[in-house]
């Protein structure tokens, strides 16, 4: 029951954060000095067409009223229409969202699959040469932006070896094999960097576990190393891994903006950049809000998981709520 109360509180605070964040997004686009219509039409536009666009977008009405309308539109799935084509924004970004969601989730999945065994291995072998080498490599991988890893992978696997396409996208439904071939490099580009960060956390979490009394006791009473790690280590290390991986998933959605532009994937990030370059502010506003919402929702889910998994936090909740 108390756990449910804690979850309800988290969800409530998520709703509050979303509201505040939506206001910030709206205010940054609409209330910064500089007229929205003038920005959309660019520096060489004549006053008459600026006035016409202001009229069409309803920009002369009070700011707060427009915010409430926009918010209502977001909640009902109609976040306005493009300032350029007049097409509803929902129909523009719907198909793009799928591309970005695939890219981000597959990257994180691959990141975790790479990081947990590697982190465990480097924790166990931390005093041997290979453990030290893994640590060094993660340091280097963390110092490289996603798009740079993407470029290097592109040069090796697409340009030199010609194993995979250098850019473009095929939807999953039209050709699953081509879909996979197009996603391998972008996914790997993100996964390598994110895994590097995660490996360091997994490594230090496992080093802590290996030094714990309960682990030594388990070994002393006859548990073999691998079962002991699985039974006692994974559960304790999983807390930290889930927290870090969750926060990474959020940052990775945003990182995908850059990687999509490297591999010309028609995702939300590419669309966002296109909209910025075309000065299509309503589209920019909607896509930024989607990203912000994704980040906030993921953070809340991570918080909830953390509460459910960690008996210590659970106990603390019960203390504070009673």
């Amino acid at each position, binding site marked *: 029951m108390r756990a449910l109360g804690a979850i309800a509180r988290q969800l409530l605070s998520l709703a509050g954060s979303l509201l505040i964040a939506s206001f910030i997004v709206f205010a940054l*686009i609409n209330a910064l000095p500089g007229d929205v219509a003038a920005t959309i039409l660019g520096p060489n536009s004549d006053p008459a067409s600026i006035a016409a666009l202001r009229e069409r977008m309803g920009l002369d009405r009070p700011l707060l009223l427009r915010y409430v309308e926009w918010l209502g539109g977001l909640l009902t799935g109609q976040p306005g229409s493009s300032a350029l084509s007049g097409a509803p924004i929902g129909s523009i970004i719907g198909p793009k969202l799928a591309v970005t969601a695939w890219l981000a989730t597959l990257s994180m999945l691959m990141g975790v699959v790479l990081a947990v065994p590697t982190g465990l291995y480097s924790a166990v072998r931390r005093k041997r040469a290979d453990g030290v080498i893994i640590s060094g490599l993660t340091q*280097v991988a963390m110092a490289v932006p996603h798009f*740079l890893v993407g470029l*290097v992978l592109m*040069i090796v696997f697409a340009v030199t070896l010609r194993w995979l396409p250098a850019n473009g996208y095929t939807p999953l439904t039209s050709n699953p094999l081509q879909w996979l071939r197009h996603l391998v490099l972008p996914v790997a580009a993100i996964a390598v960097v994110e895994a590097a960060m995660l490996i360091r956390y997994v490594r230090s979490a496992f080093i802590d576990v290996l030094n714990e009394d309960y682990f030594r006791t388990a070994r002393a009473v006859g548990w073999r190393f691998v079962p002991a790690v699985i039974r006692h280590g994974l559960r304790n290390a999983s807390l930290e891994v889930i927290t870090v991986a969750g926060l990474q998933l959020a940052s990775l959605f945003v990182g995908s903006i850059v990687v999509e532009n490297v591999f010309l994937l028609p995702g939300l990030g590419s669309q966002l950049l296109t909209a910025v370059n075309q000065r299509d*502010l309503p589209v920019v506003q909607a896509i930024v809000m989607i990203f*912000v919402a994704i980040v906030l929702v993921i953070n809340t889910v991570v918080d909830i998981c953390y509460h459910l998994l960690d008996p210590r936090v659970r106990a603390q909740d019960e203390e504070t709520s009673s």
Partner: protein
Amino acid sequence: MRRSHPLVVGAVLVGLICILAVVSFFWTPHDPGLVDASIALQPPSRTYPLGTDGFGQDIFSRILVGARICMLVGVMAVTIGALLGVPIGILAGMSRRHVGRRIMRWADIFYAFPALLLAILLAAANGTGSTMTAMIAIGISSIPAFARVANTASRSVMSRDFVAAARSSGIGWTAIAWRHVLPNILPVVLVQVSSALGRAILAEAALSYLGVGTQPTTPTWGRMLYDAQKFVYDHPAQIAVPAVFIAITVLGFNLLGDGLREALDPRLRQEA
């Protein structure tokens, strides 16, 4: 002795990039903006130590000027983040527990605006991006990390005896914050500064690459990568130079941060 390695390597790498940035103000081998199609894509030579790019511009000169932008954006952004984030964290850390938690919740809202997203938003609202919008965006997005670090550290300082002594002798809150809390949390903040610099420089590179930060007319490492990408088929080596410099700089700051953390935390010294 072994423990100081990351600190020394990090300091050397960062120092190297700082020297490049300073040198660029006084001297570059060629005009970094001089376009000459007849000498495009040359391999390294005596006149062009790192070769020329697709426009015939000297890559080494552009790297020098790029170091300047990269350091400028990194340092300014982290200054913004620290100047706003640390006071928030101290305030939260000195408040009662539930008040502090509420303050931190507000600071956490900024987590929803990663540097890249905020920079794109500012660039869109402004018409185009600039070095300034990049700095502000990266700076604001680093606020919550600074606030969090300062919050945890000040809370532990507040539980120490000397603070209790100061409070019982009637010293005001601001004086306690200034004289006791800030000096004691400075080391942790310093570690955070170093790793925030690494992250800021990664973000700056991404923004310049996308063309939503510093405008393409100014040489930046990120934009050099963008320009080099056009030649991946015929001259893939073009991406190598800017790539290496970005990696060196970020690696330098990360190592510096790790080294500082180890030097300050005696518990870590025994481990590994």
